[in-house]
């Protein structure tokens, strides 16, 4: 058994998985520190779920090496399973079992001591004491998600892998959920969370962006933004739709995307971008140079990756 000599909860490199000759995850490496909330972002089908499944032993990696919680990520998947909580993208608890029965089942599977006590505490913490006999299938999306999280926590894991935990959950439940995540992280739990929401990405300590199975950027929010070397202009004015169409084909404009009542125009080459927009920098348009947001950067990364990998 390996000691956690490197102090990293997840430390893997070159993780690769192929399905039918297509590399769904292509040499991805990741380092996650204890107590960190690590965001995992990327478009649908980019390989996020596959990567997470390899971490917890649900899929066999074709290539790759490293450790998860100090255990060999390839060989010791059974040991890893004991200390990892994995919340699947789709609700995967038993809908024909009640809340209490689901939790009880999980507790048995992990051989929890004082099982009944642990389960009833968990139900209490969930705030579901009165509804513990209700079937899981009858719960709303938000409650299902809370139940899933509670079930993943029952065996006191050190690492939680959450795959799009807030998809289809209303904003209030989403906010409550994130509060709980931060609280648990403060207690020392480590999180790897996939998400499509930018506000959630910004709540992560660090994040990684992957597309087409490759890691395109990682670091803190600021680092990811800086590393993109993106120049972004914000435009205000009438009939932005027309402006968007015109700008899109100009050299140096990588994307022009509407953000509310404004248009963000971004490009990698600041000078070329400035030359291209020069004819439009007059009334009625109001141009401001802004610091690009995460979303600008991701749209930029996604566009780039499409150019590179799409065939």
């Amino acid at each position, binding site marked *: 058994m390996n000691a956690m000599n490197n102090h990293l909860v997840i430390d893997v490199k070159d993780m690769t998985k192929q399905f039918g000759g297509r590399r769904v995850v292509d040499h991805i490496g990741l380092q996650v520190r204890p107590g960190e909330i690590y965001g995992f972002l990327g478009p649908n089908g980019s390989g996020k779920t596959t990567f997470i499944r390899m971490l917890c032993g649900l*899929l066999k990696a074709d290539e790759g090496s490293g450790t998860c919680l100090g255990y060999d990520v390839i060989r*010791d998947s059974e040991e890893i*399973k*004991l200390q990892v909580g*994995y919340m699947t993208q789709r609700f*995967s608890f*038993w809908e*024909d079992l009640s809340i209490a*029965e689901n939790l009880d089942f999980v507790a048995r*599977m992990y051989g929890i001591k004082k099982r009944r006590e642990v389960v009833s505490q968990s139900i209490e913490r969930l705030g579901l004491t009165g509804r513990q006999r209700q079937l899981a299938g009858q719960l709303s999306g938000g409650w299902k998600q809370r139940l899933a999280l509670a079930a993943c926590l029952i065996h006191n894991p050190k690492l939680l892998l959450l795959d799009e935990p807030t998809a289809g959950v209303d904003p209030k439940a989403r906010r409550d959920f994130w509060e709980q995540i931060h609280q648990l992280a403060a207690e020392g739990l480590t999180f790897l969370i996939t998400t499509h929401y930018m506000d959630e990405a910004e709540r992560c300590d660090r994040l990684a962006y992957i597309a087409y199975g490759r890691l395109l950027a990682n670091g803190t929010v600021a680092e990811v933004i800086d590393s993109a070397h993106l120049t972004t202009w914000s435009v205000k004015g009438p009939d932005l739709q027309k402006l968007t169409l015109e700008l899109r084909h100009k050299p140096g404009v990588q994307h022009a995307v509407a953000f509310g009542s404004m248009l963000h125009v971004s490009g990698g080459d600041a000078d070329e971008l400035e030359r291209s927009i020069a004819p439009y920098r007059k009334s009625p348009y109001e141009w401001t140079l802004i610091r690009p947001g995460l979303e600008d950067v991701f749209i930029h990364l996604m566009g780039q990756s499409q150019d590179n990998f799409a065939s």
Partner: protein
Amino acid sequence: MSSPSPFSVQRFIAIVVKEFIQMGRDRVTFGMMVGIPLIQLVLFGFAINTDPKHLPVAVLMADQGAQSRTLLEAMKNSRYFEFVREVHSEAEAQEALSQGAVQFVVNFPVNFSRDLLRGDRPVLLVEADATDPASTSNAMGSLNKVLEQALKHDLKGPLAFLDTSAGGAVDLRIHARYNPEAITQYNIVPGLMGVVLTMTMVMITALAITRERERGTMENLLSMPTRPFEVLLGKIIPYILIGYIQVALILLAAHFLFQVPMMGDLGLLLLGVFVFITANLAMGITFSTLAKNQLQAVQLSFFFFLPSLLLSGFMFPFRGMPVWAQTLGEVLPLTHFLRVVRGIMLKGNGLHETMGHLWPVALFAAVVLTIGVKRYRQTLD
């Protein structure tokens, strides 16, 4: 933190408890499991008749005369009878009959030929295993005619005075054993027990793993520290109980509705049932590891059920089938279970006779479950 054990009783219990609860919640399936035996009992209230030939016969030959040879030859020529062995005592004959090794025992007493020629009307005793009336009735019906023709041919010239008509020179006595009144229900109803168990047990477990996969709960189950054997065995256990409920229903119907006798030991029968149920559940759970979805699982179940129904000797007399079909039939648990259940209920067979038909079922279960455990994947690959 120690590494997870290869088999954890606690995890096994967890699966069993979960399966029991889910079984209880699934009212439709539960109703089906109880309804199917009842419907089948009603539907199969009638028998299916065919005309099997070459039925295996044992001869107990105490006579050395020419006439007994003539009669044996004539029986063989009728194509209904095939002499497969010679027995030397009544006890040996009984054993061959109760184990089902032969369908008939022909008993030529001492001095048969001499008595025949003297006109003393010697007794020719034919004992038949009439458990399944369909497979013996034609052969038995033909006997008189066969004997008459053979004797007419043989008893000529100075012997022509002997009466060769039916019931003439020979006192033919046929003992239809085990089911003397040839009541088809005696045969069909115990057989139905096997058919119903095959149908429902295989299908219900065939769905077990595919259902988890289709509902997306398999991913969750696999992310927990669990072993194939715990999951497969844990999913089988609750259905053994269901199987016994079906058996109880059929036995009650057999007794009260069809007045089928229960000659043997009920405890032995229930033991036989256990082995048979396990074999079918093992088959189902293995299908479950092979099938990609629930529809495939159901199709695989039928793929198994149909040959079981047709080749086991339930639908058609086993000995009426061609050799290749019999060989195939010997592999199927139902074939052996039919012999077990009919043997115990109708012949009053004991442990000794039963074991001979039970071990192939146990072997089947072991082989199939091994395949299942091997096929069960611990990953989503």
